């Protein structure tokens, strides 16, 4: 199992805008480089990418959650 951590403090978003589906749904497979969410800070949005490939992503942070740098965003197998 591996964790995807937030590189930055800010607000976590699971989709690119309120009316688009999330980048990943719980249970999806993940390929290294896939965007799994966005962190908003200082008036800009930063993509969070998976560094490794894995299966069955499970999100630990909800949409619009405040997160710290290093906070777990999701687990993958």
């Amino acid at each position: 199992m591996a964790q995807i951590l937030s590189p930055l403090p800010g607000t976590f978003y699971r989709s690119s805008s309120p009316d688009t589906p999330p980048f990943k749904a719980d249970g999806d497979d993940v390929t290294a480089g896939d965007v799994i969410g966005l962190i908003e800070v200082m008036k800009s949005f930063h993509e969070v990418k998976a560094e490794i490939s894995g299966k069955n992503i499970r999100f630990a942070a909800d949409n619009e959650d405040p997160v710290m740098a290093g906070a777990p965003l999701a687990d993958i197998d």
Partner: protein
Amino acid sequence: MAIKVITPGLATSVQDLGRPGYYHVGIPEGGGMDRFATRIANLLVGNEPGAAILEATFMGPELEFTAPAVVAVTGGELPPKVNGEERPTWESFAVKAGDRLSFGYLKSGARAYIAVSGGIDVPVVLGSRSTYMLGALGGFEGRVLKAGDEIPVGTGTGKPGRSLPTDLRGGVSGAIELRMLPGIYWHRITEAAGKRFFEDTWKVAPEADRIGYRFRGGTPLEFVAREQPFGAGSDPSNIVDACYPYGSVQVPSGTEPIVLHRDAVSGGGYMMLGVVISADMDRIAQLQPHTPARFVPVTLDEALTARAERRAALAKAEDTLTA
């Protein structure tokens, strides 16, 4: 000697102690947002306190050195690593030609100050090497660092192993209270609104940056009814344009207070409730998004006492390093 930027971090820029003297023509003082950390980082590596450093916000860059140097990292706890091996903060350490400096996740605070012996040697613009990003002025090409940049560094004489004792580092701990001196527009809000403003807990908004720190989550202000003055906008928070001091707290439409910081705009048409005192400006620089904070009213005498205490703490820290 140069530093190659492998990855730039989020918003890493060259800063020093700023360019005072041009605010009246709209160019802010700028410089390192946390002045204490900027000065100490320089002294740890044997530089003058006002030499140019790198200010990294929320996330560190990855840098490669083309020649040996001495480096120190102060401010927020952003753990430095040399070739992947962790180094202490608030303590100078040596790097060799080809070494890579990277950083772990930010543990506390918001901004780290990376000083290199010899100082960052970009051209002096209007008396300072600091970068004013909004005006594309000074620093390295007037902007934040990008991958592939080569940042020139001067020749220095720093020694590794020099550190500032923990009790002299200051730092943010416990509940955040920002001391504020109410100002000349205070009469624009009702007495009840003024009371609530100081009682409420506000949270740092993710938009907070070098220009201003925005807060949200408190009760919207209630304004005293008035006849719109000639030259002021129609919103009750509007005034006839005025100068904006550093630290001034404007509340557009009465909803989200913004504390102007080092890259402040110099004037505009929003009333200001007052100013955060100079002694607490470094503390604001180290607030992460979503951090709860309260504003606490102080008198001018209390503000001046706090300033004197802050200066004494800085002098004590500087004496320790220059003795």
